C-alpha cells in the first residue's frame, strides 16, 4: 500500500520494560522487536498485554519506577535509550507525537481549543502568535472541522467527543511529526464518528507520509485499517502479520481472539472461549 523506504524510521530490538513495585519487578514488556516505516502498524492485544506500555516507552513517558532495556531503540539517527532529556523534548510532540484515548481527559479544560493547538506549535517553533493561530486554523480545517473559526474559540466541554478527538489529532499533527502513536484513538467514539476520525487519520498519514502506530484491541477495525499487525500477549509479540493475512493467522492466540469475536455474518450457538497456554508468554 505505502511505499517502503529503505531505512525504517523507527527500529526497536529486544525491548524490555520492568516496573519496580512493592512486590518486586513486574516484567511488562518482554523482548519486543519491530521496525516502522511509512506505514500503519497496529499493536493489538487484551488489557494488560503491554501494548500501551510499548507506545509510551517510545516517547519515554514513564514513571521513574520503569526500567527500560533494549538492544536497539533508534529513531532516525537518535538513540532514544541514551539521549538526553533535552534532546527528547525536541522529539516529543515535534517529530514523534501521541494521540491519547479520551479527549475528555487529555485536553486542558480551561483553555480554548484553538489556543491549545497553537501552543503545541509554539512550543517548538519561534514564530509570532498570529502565525501559530493561522496554522491552528488551517489544521482544524485539515481534520475536517466545519466552521474552524468558531470551533477555535470553544472550550473542550463545548465540543462533542468526535470533535474533541479531531482537535487532539490536529494538535498532534500541527508540528508535522514523522511518527504518530495513536493509543486507542477511537474506542470512546460512536461508529459513525469513528469512521470519520479514521478517514481523517488515514488521509493525513498518506498525504504526509507518516509512520503510524495504532494501538487497539479491536481486531475487526485493525484488519481493515492498518497495513501490518503485531499481536501482543503477556508483554510479548506472539505474531507479526500483514493485516490482509489476518484470516490466515498461525498463532493459536491470534486465532482464538478472532474466533471469539461475535459476528453478524456467522451466527453460532456458542462462541469459542480462548484457552490460554502458559507457554505463549515464555516462547
Amino acid at each position: 500500500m505505502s511505499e517502503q523506504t529503505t531505512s525504517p524510521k523507527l527500529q526497536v530490538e529486544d525491548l524490555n520494560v520492568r516496573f519496580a513495585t512493592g512486590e518486586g519487578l513486574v516484567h511488562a514488556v518482554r523482548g519486543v522487536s519491530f521496525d516502522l516505516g511509512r506505514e500503519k502498524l497496529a499493536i493489538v492485544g487484551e488489557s494488560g498485554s503491554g501494548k500501551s506500555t510499548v507506545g509510551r516507552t517510545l516517547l519515554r513517558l514513564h514513571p521513574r519506577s520503569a526500567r527500560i532495556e533494549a538492544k536497539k531503540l533508534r529513531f532516525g539517527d537518535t538513540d532514544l535509550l541514551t539521549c538526553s532529556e533535552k534532546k527528547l523534548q525536541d522529539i516529543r510532540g515535534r517529530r514523534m507525537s501521541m494521540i491519547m484515548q479520551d479527549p475528555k481527559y487529555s485536553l486542558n479544560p480551561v483553555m480554548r481549543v484553538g489556543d491549545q493547538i497553537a501552543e503545541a506549535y509554539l512550543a517548538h517553533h519561534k514564530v509570532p502568535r498570529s502565525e501559530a493561530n493561522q496554522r491552528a486554523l488551517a489544521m482544524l480545517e485539515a481534520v475536517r472541522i466545519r466552521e474552524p473559526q468558531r470551533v477555535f474559540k470553544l472550550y473542550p466541554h463545548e465540543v462533542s467527543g468526535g470533535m474533541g478527538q479531531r482537535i487532539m489529532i490536529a494538535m498532534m499533527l500541527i508540528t508535522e511529526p514523522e511518527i504518530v502513536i495513536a493509543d486507542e484513538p477511537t474506542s470512546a467514539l460512536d461508529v459513525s464518528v469513528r469512521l470519520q476520525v479514521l478517514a481523517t487519520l488515514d488521509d493525513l498519514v498518506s498525504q504526509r507520509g507518516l509512520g503510524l502506530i495504532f494501538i487497539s484491541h479491536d481486531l475487526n477495525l485493525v484488519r481493515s485499517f492498518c497495513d501490518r499487525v503485531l499481536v501482543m500477549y503477556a508483554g510479548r509479540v506472539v505474531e507479526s502479520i500483514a493485516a490482509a493475512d489476518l484470516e490466515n493467522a498461525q498463532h493459536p492466540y491470534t486465532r482464538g481472539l478472532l474466533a471469539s469475536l461475535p459476528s453478524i455474518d456467522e451466527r453460532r450457538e456458542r462462541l469459542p472461549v480462548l484457552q490460554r497456554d502458559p507457554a505463549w508468554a515464555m516462547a
Partner: protein
Amino acid sequence: MAKTMTMNTPANGPTIQVDKLNLSFGIGASANQVLYDVDFSVEEGEAFGLVGESGSGKTTVLRCLAGQYDHWQGSLSIHGQKLGRKLDRARCRKVQMVFQDPYGSLHPRHTVETALAEPLAIHGIGDRDARIDAILSKVGLPLSFRFRYPHQLSGGQRQRVAIARALILEPRILLLDEPTSALDVSVQAEILNLLADLRVRDGLTYLLVTHDLGVVAHLCDRVAVMQQGRIVDMQECAALSGSMPTHPYTRMLVEASRHYSREMAQIAATDAAAASRVAA
C-alpha cells in the same frame, strides 16, 4: 409474599409492551425531549436488542422499564400488567438489570456474599446460604469467591457477580445495559455464552442495549435501531447477515461493524452534516 409469587406466571400478551413512550428532561422552554413515541413489544423467552449511538435514547428506554425514571408518558406493561411510576417489590422480583461497568456497579467494600445477600434481605427471603451457593455455581464462579471483595476479582468475574446479583431474586426479565462493553473480547465471549445458557435454562426474557451489532446478532432474535430518540428500524437478527438492510442508518451500522471503509466514512460524514442542519 405469596401474592407476589403468583405474579411470576406469564399472563396473556407479550412479556414487555412499550407503547408511545415519551420522555423529556427539563420544563418549559428548556425542555429537552429524549424519547419520541417509542413502541415495541418483546415475547416471552425472546431476546430483543436495542442498538444506536450515544444519545439515541436506548439506555433511557431501559431505565424507564427498570424504574429509574418515573416521569415518562405513555404506557409500559409487563406480562399484561401496566407498570406504575413507583418501583415496588413485586416489580423487582420480575425485572432486574445488569449494568455496563462491573467496576462501578459493585460496592468496593462489600464482599460478594454481602452483595448477593442484600436483595434477599430486602425481600425477606430465607435460606440465604443455599441460594448464594446455588447462584454462584449457576454463573460459573467457585463457591470460595463468596468471601472476596470486588478488587480481588477480574472484570469478567465481576460481571458474573453482577449477573448473579440480578438473578438471585429469580426474575423473569433481565435488562442488560452494554453488559460486555467494558470487557476484553475473550472475556466477552465467556459472558455472552453464559447469558445464552441462562436464557435457555431458565426461560428468561432479555432486553439488551448495546452499540455492538455483533453482540446483538449473536444473542438476540430481533433488534430495534434507535436514532435521536426514535426507533427508525426493526429487523430480525437473522436478516442482518444475508441481505443488505434497507434503512440507510442500519446499513451504515452493519457495514461499520464489519470493517472500516472510505465509502462508509463518506456516508457517515454526509449523514452527520444533514443531521446538524436539521438540528440547526
